């Protein structure tokens, strides 16, 4: 079972590779706005796809919205919901 630290670590890894952020992801807080830090809508799609690959899940249509991908904490909440059970 994945711990919260595992989740955060993997999310940060995906953001590092696909988020096109203007600063190093290690310097971002869990609630920092990823869009404010340079993530474009195009990059956010790649983040979504990479998260789906990393966690072997698929975001349902109702989760394809800005608030789900706006911060590390928001992504973590969505992943927790999708991987529960």
């Amino acid at each position: 079972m994945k711990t919260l630290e595992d989740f955060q670590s993997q999310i940060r890894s995906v953001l590092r590779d696909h988020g096109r952020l203007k600063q190093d992801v290690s310097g971002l807080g869990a609630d920092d706005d990823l869009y404010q830090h340079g993530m474009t809508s195009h990059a956010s799609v790649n983040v979504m796809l990479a998260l789906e690959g990393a966690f072997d899940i698929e975001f349902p249509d109702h989760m394809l919205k800005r608030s789900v991908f706006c911060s590390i904490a928001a992504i973590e909440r969505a992943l927790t919901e999708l991987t529960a059970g």
Partner: protein
Amino acid sequence: MKFDGQARALRPVPLVFEAPEGSCFGWLHPAQGVSRSTGVVLCRPMGYEALCSYRTYSLLAETLAQAGFDVLRFDYQGTGDSAGLDTDAGRVTAWLESIEAAVGHIKRIAGVSRVALFGVRLGATLAVEAAGRMGGVDSLVLWAPCVTGRAFVREMRAASANRSMGTSDAGPDELDAMGCLYTARTLEQLQALDCTRVQQPPARQALIIARDDMPAEGPLPGKFRELGMAVTSANWPGYAAMVSDPLDAVLETATLDAIAGWLSATEPRRELAPAVRSALPALPENYAMDGVRESAQRFDADQSLFGILCEPAEGRSETAVLMLNVGGNYHIGPHRMYVKAARALAMAGYSSLRFDLAGIGDSRMPAGSSVDSMYFRDAMPDVRAAIDFLAQKGYRRFCLLGVCSGAYVAFQTALLDARVSGQILMNPRLLEWEAAPRDGWQASMRRHYKSIGYYRRALLRSNLYQRLLRGEVDVKGVAHRMGMLLTARLSRAMTALLRRTGTDVGVLPSLRSLGARGCNTLMIMSEQDDAMDYVEFHLGKRGSRLKADPNFRLVMMEHSDHTFSTHASQRMVIDIVRDHLDQQQQPAPAWGGIPARVAAT
């Protein structure tokens, strides 16, 4: 016109061919040297990815032509420079029919007997589907293919939801994403595309190149092998860089060479000595596109700049609008806005030239150049060459139009060339560039924020405080921008105090001198865009320092983003520009009639 191969360097030739739902624009890259018997048709991805990958497609076409293939790269009906709109019904049918028409066309004009299809992303999906329907396709080269249309639609849905600004007028069953509007019927057709459902081999062989940023083989190679196709799977670099940004797109020439090598391995050159190739097709002129006339044009001293002249079907005014590149976006403009604007203006009687500066799109690539920032390059001579060309065509009034860096080029050209009678500047983030900047604007505008006005207004809304408390606002970055703005204001005040007079250089006096010369300026600004900070610093709140100037007007647009990515905001921009040109035709300035939902000052 049909021709055969001949061993001499042949330039790519623009052409127009007919597809069932309308004309398609494309480029033929003739085989260099002894040609092969195979023509290659390049199928573009959609929207933003098509824009970003434009140079890669051009270079791949050149690479394949050097290897002896005749190559046709083209725009599907409703995209790029072709006829039609993305809002037309059932686009997938039109895209597939465009591919079939392109295949027929290259067979006719190049005399090739075999055809290979190349596609990136949805272009690959469409290539598989079209090959399955047509039959007779020899090879498929699929780069980062969307295995299903459903996967593509999900990505577009996510991209649309994650857009930061830009109100869309898409209906409940439509999708406005990455610069394209997908209608309900188009979405339904996209959902039905599935490369794994093919029952017959769509081609003899396939090369499938995985995404380099998410390498995974996916189900396609296995499926195609089951059908008896010869399949090569590759993990070659280039995809992620190719589609990251129109300006920063990095061309992975090794991968393009490898693609040419793979195709060449099974496609021998013709053994017979080639006949002398007859004259290549002439530049297409005065062809009908959406009710107006267009002509592909080369100009400048060595005919090395390229553009498309769009004119009314009948008659014309003396005014020509020159549409200037935005960053690395080629001449169709951001999200194809220049094509839509050009045709709408031609319907209203105005001609336009949408063209590429050197180093961009289909114009010359200066040796050793890359797509540098428009602020570093000396682009103004290219614009003046375009004015020369239009003057030779009989035009007398020249209006420069540009978004962001295109606005910078427009402004700087207007200062240099007295023939410029008007300029339309949209969301300029900088209008001057200095090797040794006097203030912090150049450095600061490298980062995008929303306008300071937006943050001020947001302070009145409780949800900003909630976001601040959650740390969701880049407080440090916004504070830095505010600090820079304050410093610049102080610096300007000190300079004025010491000189006891206003400075005679800078954006404001330059605009005043243009106005005095009779050159009118229309600024179109997105209210939330941080270009507002730059403009208001120089021109006062909503351009108040130029309020008395009859040759200056600033129009604010609510809910639009930096490059007017949504269908709704593009339509509004086009309406504003057309109204502006109409008013310029009147004997005396008579401002008014600004469309609803737009605040004018």
